[in-house]
């Protein structure tokens, strides 16, 4: 599956200076792994030591928080969009 992944500006430096990336995978976790393979520094800000979602970011798959689905195991459809937002916001 080809997916668009949008990063916040604060992560752009760790991702080759870009906030919009194309990546592939059958699940959110696989898409993140694909991007992390190309940008290892970014990977440490998207996944924790156990490979779970990093606690200070939130992943939205087509505007839905993946914590309400299956987390990194949430399947993605071709053409889907994943948005990464810092968890420290709002309120």
């Amino acid at each position, binding site marked *: 599956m080809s997916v668009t992944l949008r990063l916040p500006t604060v992560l752009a430096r760790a991702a080759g200076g870009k906030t919009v990336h194309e990546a592939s995978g059958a699940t959110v976790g696989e898409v993140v792994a694909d991007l992390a393979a190309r940008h290892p520094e970014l990977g440490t800000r998207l996944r924790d030591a156990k490979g779970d979602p990093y*606690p200070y970011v939130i992943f939205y798959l087509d*505007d839905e928080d993946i*914590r309400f689905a299956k987390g990194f195991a949430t399947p993605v459809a071709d053409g889907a969009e994943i948005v990464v937002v810092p968890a420290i*916001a709002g*309120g």
Partner: protein
Amino acid sequence: MSSPAAAAPRAPAAGAEPSGPRPLPLRCRLCGAPADAAPVATCERCLGPLEPAYDPARRLPSRAEIEGRPRSIWRYAEWLPLLGPPEVSLDTGFTPLLDAPALARALGVRRALVKNDAVSHPTLSFKDRVVAVALNAARGFRLDTVGCASTGNLANAVAAHAARAGLAAWIFVPEDLEIGKIVGTAVYGPRLVRVRGTYDDVNRLCAQVADRFGWGLVNLNLRGYYAEGSKTMAHEIAEQLGWRLPDAVVAPMAGGSLLTKLDKGFREFRDAGLVDGTLPRLYGAQAAGCSPIVRLVERGGDAIEPVVPRTIARSIAIGNPADGRFAARAIRATGGGAAAVEDEELVAGIRLLAETTGVFTETAGGVTVAAALKLARAGTLRPSDELVVCITGNGLKTVEAVRPSLPEAPVIAAKLREVAALVSCGA
């Protein structure tokens, strides 16, 4: 109401080039990495929250010096994240700390006091405190447009303070907000946008908006500065008690920032030698239909499990609280607790506060009072306690929440005998 489609950020008025105080540099609360002063809330290294880096060697004022200053949040300027005097929102803060003996009897505590931000200037909620700080920071950064994601009170405050400061404002709220909060925002002339979805949807959108447009969204990219304004509620409580700390404080929790900053504010005054003694036990209140922080306190651990809010307490209906883990830590560190209450209980809480103190609060205040009652009945609050109840918003903003619970007023002709009939039947 304005449509957002044709809007463009307004430049500051000609000849009114914003100057403003200089915001402090920042430091990551998690990893300690320093960051330049900027409208950025997230650490580039670890994505933790950025906080202002105060100079530990700065000169701090004495009690007498503070007492000689104007009655506003700015009397505590040394603990606010700006260098130089503020330029806007000078009258915010120093709300009453009201002795409430009848409420104390109802709760079964030795003494109860109401910190009454229902009469905060200018928009009748504690959000005036945080927005006053954020708007001065925005002027310091030469921003011409500010905004927020809001459940209502913040929308009111940003719209009003921006109008005063001559800044354009873009304000995003959930579509189904109470009419009082919609009107109480739109009247100040901001670009008000109603978003289909919950506050958490609005918040996600605004995180992207802040990234895209370079505006100063007070609770997103200005959050490190904004949140510090909440500390002044703790500062005022300590000063208004005669430079003492209470035994316990109960406050509502939405994003969790207020409770976290109350803890910080009390610690700051103790560290400065302005008060001594044990830090107050902090208690957090949420509606049962949106209680992720209460659940975290009860469950233990450090990870919030987000929820979809289902409560009439819309002003605190944040299912994914950004500071939830920090609020839970403050509660545990002070030996406090947390409680969630049903919507019927919060309505009863609104009425209990009104009938015992003469203070009319909105739904969040009803949650706070009802939670205090629940904690007292459970024995968590002690009979010997001096308790401060933080009332953060005004009931006139959410009349629809309490109206169905109130008796219908009889309608009579202007005749004395009709009054006599009411008196005789005890109506």
